């Protein structure tokens, strides 16, 4: 069972660096999407493995049940030759 209060805290701390977190539940876990404000500091976002580990106790599932999408993933999908 996910901890909404801690999830909101995580949203707030990400927002301090210009990032936004949205969570969608699916059959076997969660899709977690991180979007960035223009000019957000790229180095300030924790690596995916770290964020997945942090979200495990908050979402109440293992890291393998958390599908993370970062701004860099979206950019790569939109510009596959870049």
């Amino acid at each position, binding site marked *: 069972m996910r901890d909404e209060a*801690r999830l909101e805290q995580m949203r707030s701390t990400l927002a301090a660096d210009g990032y936004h977190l949205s969570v969608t539940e699916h059959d076997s876990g969660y899709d977690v999407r991180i979007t960035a404000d223009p000019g957000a500091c790229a180095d300030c976002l924790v690596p995916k493995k770290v964020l997945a580990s942090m979200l495990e106790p908050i979402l109440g599932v293992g890291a393998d049940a958390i599908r993370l999408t970062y701004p860099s993933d979206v950019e790569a999908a939109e510009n596959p030759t870049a």
Partner: protein
Amino acid sequence: MFDRILDPTGLTSTGPANVATAARRVPTLKGARVGLLNNTKQNAKELLAEIGKLLESRYGATVTIQRTKPHVAFPVDEPQLKEVAAASDVVVVGVGDCGSCSASATADGILFEREGIPAAVIVTEAFEVTARAMAEVHGDKDFEFLLTPHPVAVLNQEQIAQRAADLVDVVAQRVCEAAK
């Protein structure tokens, strides 16, 4: 070619058990060797240097080593951990002034504690949640880091000196029983 792949969590499969471990605090800071580990964030080096000076002038400690991490978002690597630990009785780490750097600075502190070196980790208040979450990832959810107002990056020289003056006693108390 990579010699090895860095784990951004700072956890290793061959390292110490992933459980809370606090180093023994030094009995006094007089004559203690202080290591400073700067994580490359803006003003981190300056703030740590000021705290180091105050630990020397107020407490009689000596700054013996100052190092900069190669990457802000990753915990200290083992060679640098060992180097700083070998030259220090206590370590000051900072500044956790963003998400990734507050997480990695917390991991650094936990790694030094497991190495037997008391560590004072400085994190800004905006990233307390990230630092606490990283401590939990390391099996040390109650790890004590030191909070300071956010941000540090925009402070001028005078403000950095004031911030160091505000922090030095809590840094001392974190690493030394007698300073409490």
